[in-house]
C-alpha cells in the first residue's frame, strides 16, 4: 500500500495525467491546507509509484531543452487507490486500541477519568457545531464525507455521555462498598 504522500500523488495523476512540476503545483492548491511537500518528494513518489506499476510514462515532451515526463495511472494504480480510500473511510482500530492501552495505564482515578471524558465531550460538541451546513456547495462527495463526520461525532458524543455515567456509577458503587 502506498504512503499518504504517494497516495495523494497517485490521486492527482488519476485526476489528470501530468508531470512532476505540475503535480507539485496541484498538490499545493488541493492539499496545501493539510500537508506540504517538496518537488523532490514528488519525483521520489513518482519513482516509487512507477516501480510498483501504479503509474506509467505516458509520453515525453518539453521545450527549450527541458524534458518533461508525463505520467498516467495504470489500472492497477486506480484499483489500489480505491482500496486505500475505502480502508481509510473507517477509523483506525489500532489507534483506538493503543489509546485505550495508554488511558488504562494512566487514568486510575475517577476525577482524572472525568476530566478526560469532559474534555472529549466538549471537543466533540464544538466539532459538531463547526461542521458547516450545507457542508459543501454542489460537491456530493464533500457533502457525503461531512455527513459521515457528523455521524461519527454524534456517536462519540453519545459514547462520552455513556462513559461519564459509567465512571460515576462505578465511583458511587466504590463509595458505597468503602
Amino acid at each position, binding site marked *: 500500500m502506498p504512503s499518504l504522500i504517494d497516495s495523494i500523488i497517485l490521486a492527482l495523476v488519476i485526476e489528470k495525467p501530468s508531470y512532476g512540476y505540475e503535480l507539485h503545483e496541484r498538490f499545493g492548491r488541493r492539499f496545501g491546507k493539510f500537508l506540504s511537500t517538496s518537488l523532490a518528494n514528488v519525483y521520489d513518489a513518482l519513482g516509487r509509484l512507477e516501480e510498483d506499476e501504479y503509474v506509467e510514462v505516458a509520453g515525453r515532451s518539453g521545450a527549450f531543452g527541458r524534458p518533461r515526463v508525463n505520467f498516467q495511472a495504470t489500472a492497477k494504480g486506480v484499483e489500489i487507490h480505491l482500496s486505500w480510500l475505502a480502508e481509510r473511510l473507517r477509523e483506525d482500530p489500532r489507534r483506538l486500541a493503543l489509546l485505550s492501552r495508554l488511558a488504562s495505564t494512566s487514568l486510575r482515578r475517577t476525577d482524572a477519568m472525568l476530566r478526560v471524558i*469532559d474534555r472529549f*465531550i*466538549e471537543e466533540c460538541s*464544538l466539532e*459538531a457545531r463547526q461542521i458547516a*451546513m*450545507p*457542508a459543501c456547495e454542489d460537491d456530493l462527495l464533500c457533502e457525503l464525507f461531512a455527513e459521515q463526520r*457528523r455521524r461519527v461525532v454524534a456517536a462519540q458524543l453519545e459514547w462520552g455521555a455513556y462513559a461519564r455515567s459509567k465512571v460515576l456509577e462505578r465511583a458511587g458503587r466504590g463509595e458505597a462498598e468503602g
Partner: protein
Amino acid sequence: MSLLSIRHVTKRHGHGRIERLALSDVSLEIEPGEIVAVWGLRRSGRTTLVRIAAGMERPDDGTVLFAGHDLSKHRDKILGSEIGCTQFHFSSEEGESVLDQVANGLLAGRISITAARRRAKEALADVGADECAEFSPRDLDAGETVRVSLARALVVEPRLLVIDEPTNGVDLRDRDPILMLLRRIANRGVALLMTTGDGAALSGVDRVFTLDHGELHGGTSQPPASVSPFRRPSSQASVKSERMG
C-alpha cells in the same frame, strides 16, 4: 441585558425516595438571533429545561428572566406571544386542518378568522409547508410535523423560539433543510433554544451546551487550547546539554 437569562435554576421531579434532580444549578443566556443547542441523552433534563425556559414550568430554585422580566410573574403575557414553544402534537380541539391549527394561536389576539387564516397561510409558506394547509394533522409525516409546528409557533412573531428535538424522527433527507430553516429564522433576529439528542443536529449552531444528569456543561464557542507536551528539544538546547554533559 440578554433576551433570556436562566440563572441558577434547580428543578426536582417526584417526592421522597423517588425524587429525581432534573436540573441542577443551571445557568445560560441567549441573545437575539442566536441558536443555542443543548445536547443530552434521554433523562438528562433537556425537556425540563425547555419547559422552564418557555415558562411552562416553574423552577424550584433560581430565576428565569425574559428581556429582564421575571418569567414566573409575567408568564401569561409572554408565553405564546414573546416566546413561541414548538409542540409536535396537535389537539383536534384546535382545528381539523393544519391551517386552522396554525391560525388558532392568533384568535386569542382578537383578530378575525379570515385575517388569522391569511397570516397562517403566510407562516406555512415561510416554513415551506404551504402544501399541507388543508391536510389533517394526522396525515403529516415527521418533517412536515416539525415545519407545521414551527409555523404555529412563529405565526405570533415571537422573539424567542424554544424547540425540543427539532429533528427527532425526521428522515435524514429532511433534517438539513429543517436545520437550515432554523438558521434562516435566527437570521431574522429570533433567538432559538433547542434541545437535541442527535449530535448531527448541532451543525452550524452558535453555541452548544451538554446536559448530563441535570448538570449543564460547555457553551463556549472556542475550542480548548491544544496540548502538545512532547516537543523535540531545540538545536540550541541540545547543544547546551551536550556541552554540559
